[in-house]
């Protein structure tokens, strides 16, 4: 005898449908405005390929940097008690709350030529603002907190007894970390990395303020869309659709992977 599940309550379905519609409607608006007949010509423009290439390279680089710096940071915040830890935890979350343009301005004050640390960098010949490295810095600044928060949360919730058990069985600290701790938080790590990448891909305010805007060097897709809106609506829509398509493709592909993990 099979039991039928009761129909989902209307009180939840109606707001859910409205929520879904709210998110999907702007995408439909984009599709409706797309200059389908000119699509080929628009996509062939070198500026589109440059912007897309730059966006992909910088967002991946930012995710890589975030993993290298963010995972250890998350581990320290979760496992090492030290005075001022909660303050540091709040500070790390700050870029998520700060308006991106303010973040970009802050980066300029710190790393610009006349900035706190930037003056020394300039003396050594390292120029971060108005360079592709600057785009990666800006992206990392806004996106890393997503990874840190996700991994730190999972680490705090993870059961330390597994790690203790591994240690008692003779595993060294590095082995415990790589064979027990990190695999335990793998879903949060992957989700955090994905969020981090997505945030970096869409970053606009901090990039344009810190790294500036120059086609071929620092003009990522979001910047290209913003400027195209000033001049040619059709071009802006095409660029937006390309970004949506790429993002969807990655998200859909990775979704399947995670669920099978």
């Amino acid at each position: 005898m099979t039991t039928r599940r009761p129909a989902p309550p209307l009180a939840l379905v109606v707001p859910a449908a409205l929520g879904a519609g709210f998110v999907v409607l702007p995408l439909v608006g984009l599709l409706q405005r797309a200059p389908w007949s000119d699509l080929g010509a628009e996509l062939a423009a070198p500026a589109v390929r440059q912007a897309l290439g730059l966006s992909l390279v910088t967002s991946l680089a930012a995710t890589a940097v975030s993993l290298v710096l963010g995972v250890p940071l998350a581990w320290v915040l979760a496992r090492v008690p030290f005075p001022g830890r909660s303050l540091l935890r709040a500070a790390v979350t700050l870029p998520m709350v700060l308006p991106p343009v303010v973040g970009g301005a802050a980066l300029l004050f710190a790393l610009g030529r006349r900035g706190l640390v930037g003056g020394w960098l300039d003396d050594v010949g390292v120029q971060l603002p108005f360079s592709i490295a600057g785009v990666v810095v800006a992206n990392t600044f806004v996106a890393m907190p997503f990874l840190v928060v996700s991994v730190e949360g999972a680490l705090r919730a993870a059961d330390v007894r597994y790690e203790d058990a591994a240690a008692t069985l003779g595993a060294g600290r590095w082995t415990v970390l790589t064979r027990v701790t990190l695999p335990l938080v793998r879903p949060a790590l992957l989700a955090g990395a994905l969020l981090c990448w997505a945030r970096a891909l869409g970053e606009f305010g901090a990039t344009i303020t810190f790294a500036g805007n120059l086609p071929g060097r620092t003009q990522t897709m979001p910047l290209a869309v913003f400027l195209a809106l000033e001049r040619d609506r059709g071009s802006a829509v095409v660029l937006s659709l390309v970004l949506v398509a790429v993002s969807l493709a990655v998200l859909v592909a990775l979704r399947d992977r995670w669920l099978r993990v």
Partner: protein
Amino acid sequence: MRPAAALVTVAALALPACGDDGGATVTVLAAASLTDAFAALARTFEGDHPGVTVEVSSGASSSLATSVVEGQPADVFASASPAAMADVVDAGAAAGPPVDIAANVLEIVVPRGNPGDVAGLADLARGGLLVGLCAEEVPCGEVAARVLDDAGVTPATDTEEADVRALLTKVAAGELDVGLVYETDVIAAGDDVEGIALPPGAPASTRYPMAVLDGAEDPDLPEAFVDLVAGPEGRRVLRDLGFRAP
């Protein structure tokens, strides 16, 4: 405070914000470079016409023109670019012919002390300097491109900013060595920057057309505002801020 009482208090405080009963509102869309001038003229107009509120919304002329064409409700549009105004007129959104209210001239701007040792336009081609321009999509960038083209200079641009004030801020902060902005912007930044005038023959000027928009409920007030700005009072305010006569 009990929740219900708190809610009523908040609602009562918020209510005056919605709806204007009795007074008329004139909505003005103005180019970013006109912000200070229009703020002053709006106050003058409100003083001359009690009960009337003038709301000024600034932005890049090209974006504002797009909003108007897309149907944003507004009464007056003042543009820093004849091209942006042309878009509005061509779309049939202007109620009458535009009138020029001011002119502005492009200027080279450097941080205080001129660390890059910039003497003229030719220096913008130097690779060792950090050069900033406005993106060509915005009015300031159009004029800059024209000027550089006319002078035969290919700039070693490091960034194309989306609005002239952002460019000005970066130059003033010393993060850029040189930029091309309007005279009025150089004046507005005061001691933080120095201006270097362009050679007299350069096509460096832009004019500011202003028009009443279609769809204004009562065209008399918007027209009166345009008259104020285009008239002697407006000229005086604009001149004090560094604008030139149209």
